[in-house]
């Protein structure tokens, strides 16, 4: 009798264990599928962005020649004229001007942080520079409108200009350039540096002839990343660049960027005009992908050099 009860209990016990483990394995399997689906979401979003932008943008080219879209200087949406050359030039002009100031400054600052600055200075320096990343672009725009634009007005024009936009952009891309350049300077094996110093090179000669050449690919990719950020910036540009559709001939001239063109007009655009704005987005998208692949390529080649 007792044996029977024990036997019963054992069977019961086994059943519970089995049930529990079944639930365990079921939840394991469900979890596996769920996280896989989560993983796929990013891919689906990218796909959806590509499809939607193409679907809304490409119909433009059944009406407007792609060449005249890219190379015509006339942007008059109400009269069916869609040429984005002024915006392409505006974007490139502002970006190059910003890089012209930001690259020397950023690289100098990266050398400062990785080689020259005392530890105490570094500790306060880095968080402050990183704050630049977090400041909203509209705050940059506001400071630009209140300080930089009136200052540039002294030199002629309205002050809302390519130069003002470039100065604002410079501050925005500086942290990107500094942190990636600093990382690549620090990644140079210390044996190289010790070798150079042992040969009697001064600290500066070591930096100039050894560290910078070895870290070059990292610095170049930092510049390209900064360029990507600059081309994509929207709100701060709208606030200080003036937004008039002209080809800027001087830094004091007003201009419009590709991003600004989209943001300013999309809310009230319809029909072909709307298509043209999405097509502007395609141009921007392609530009960014090209820049990014360039950065990847430079970084990959850099790795090979360091390994050797």
């Amino acid at each position, binding site marked *: 009798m007792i044996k029977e009860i024990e036997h019963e209990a054992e069977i019961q016990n086994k059943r519970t264990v089995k049930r529990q483990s079944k639930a365990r394995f079921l939840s394991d399997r469900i979890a596996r599928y769920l996280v896989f689906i989560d993983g796929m979401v*990013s891919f689906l979003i990218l796909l959806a962005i590509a499809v939607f932008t193409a679907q809304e943008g490409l119909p433009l080219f059944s009406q407007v020649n792609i060449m005249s879209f890219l190379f015509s200087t006339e942007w008059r949406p109400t009269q069916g004229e869609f040429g984005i050359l002024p915006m392409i030039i505006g974007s490139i002009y502002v970006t190059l001007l910003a890089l012209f100031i930001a690259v020397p400054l950023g690289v100098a600052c990266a050398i400062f942080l990785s080689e*020259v600055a005392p530890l105490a200075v570094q500790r306060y320096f880095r968080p402050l*520079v990183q704050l630049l990343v977090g400041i909203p672009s509209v705050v940059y725009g506001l400071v630009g409108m209140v300080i930089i634009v009136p200052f540039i007005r002294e030199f002629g024009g309205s002050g809302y200009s390519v130069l003002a936009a470039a100065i604002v952009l410079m501050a925005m891309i500086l942290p990107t350039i500094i942190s990636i350049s600093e990382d690549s300077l620090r990644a140079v094996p210390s044996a190289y540096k010790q070798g150079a110093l042992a040969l009697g090179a001064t600290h500066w000669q070591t930096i100039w002839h050894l560290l910078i050449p070895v870290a070059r690919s990292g610095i170049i990719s930092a510049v390209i990343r900064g360029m990507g950020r600059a081309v994509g910036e929207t709100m701060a540009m709208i606030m200080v660049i003036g937004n008039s559709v002209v080809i800027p001939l001087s830094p004091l001239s007003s201009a419009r960027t590709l991003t600004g063109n*989209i943001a300013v007009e999309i809310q009230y655009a319809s029909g072909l005009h709307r298509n043209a704005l999405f097509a502007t987005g395609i141009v921007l998208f392609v530009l960014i992908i090209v820049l990014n692949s360039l950065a990847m390529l430079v970084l990959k080649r850099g790795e090979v050099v360091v390994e050797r």
Partner: protein
Amino acid sequence: MNARNTQKIAWFFIWAGGFITILIPISIIGYVLMRGLPSVSLDFLLTPPEGGLSGEGGISTVIVTTIYLIVVTLIILTPLGIGAAIYLAEYAGDSWITRTIRYAIDTLASVPSIIFGLFGFALFVTALHFRFSILSGALALVCLLLPTLIRTAEQAMTTVPRSQREAALALGATKWQTVSHAVLPTAMPGIVTGIILCIGRAVEETAVLYVTLGGSAAMPTSLFSGGRTLSLHLFYLAMETNAFEKSMATGAILIIIVIIINSLTDWLASRFHAKMTGGT
């Protein structure tokens, strides 16, 4: 010119570069706080803005919209982001599917925000008829922020020592039990850092919301009401009104939020680092 003098000149320029660079954040933050803080008062925080071309009023509805938008964004974003990170860190091998997903995340991370705005405008605002609303804005923000969260969460999980997983598996835990009971709790501070980072980016983001949120100054009543966040409010004030005092005050509040978020992530990151390296 001998090498020592060259070095002296080089040092001068490098110190100058460092000095100029550090002046930029100090002067921007100092200027906005000095010009803006005097106009920040309890009254400013608690009155609604008048909207339209008038820059008068406070920012009460704007604060509510900002919080509303961030909460909705996080509700959608967190499970998606953490799930994807779990997949990449724990389940994914090196297959073409995984490589495609990683490529998609990298590409998404470099897409300029106005493109997310365009996409959100086309899909959520017009095609799905969500109109200019908190829902449209939140969904577009989710797309924008997903790569950031996935990357930080994945990184946090990969720093969890292998031995911890092996111990759980050896005790008979299933893969999922290992992940949810052994990996996630340890990686939590890193994941929280990622979430706070996303909140920061949601606060600063303007381009996406400019084309999906509408910009109404009224108090949001549902997911489908439009609105404006702090950044967006600042933009409207600066571009459409003459209320520079008010926009500076809004800017000052934004800067304070950014400083708080930055210190919070720094603190969490250092704590996580200490935890992973065995310190206290």
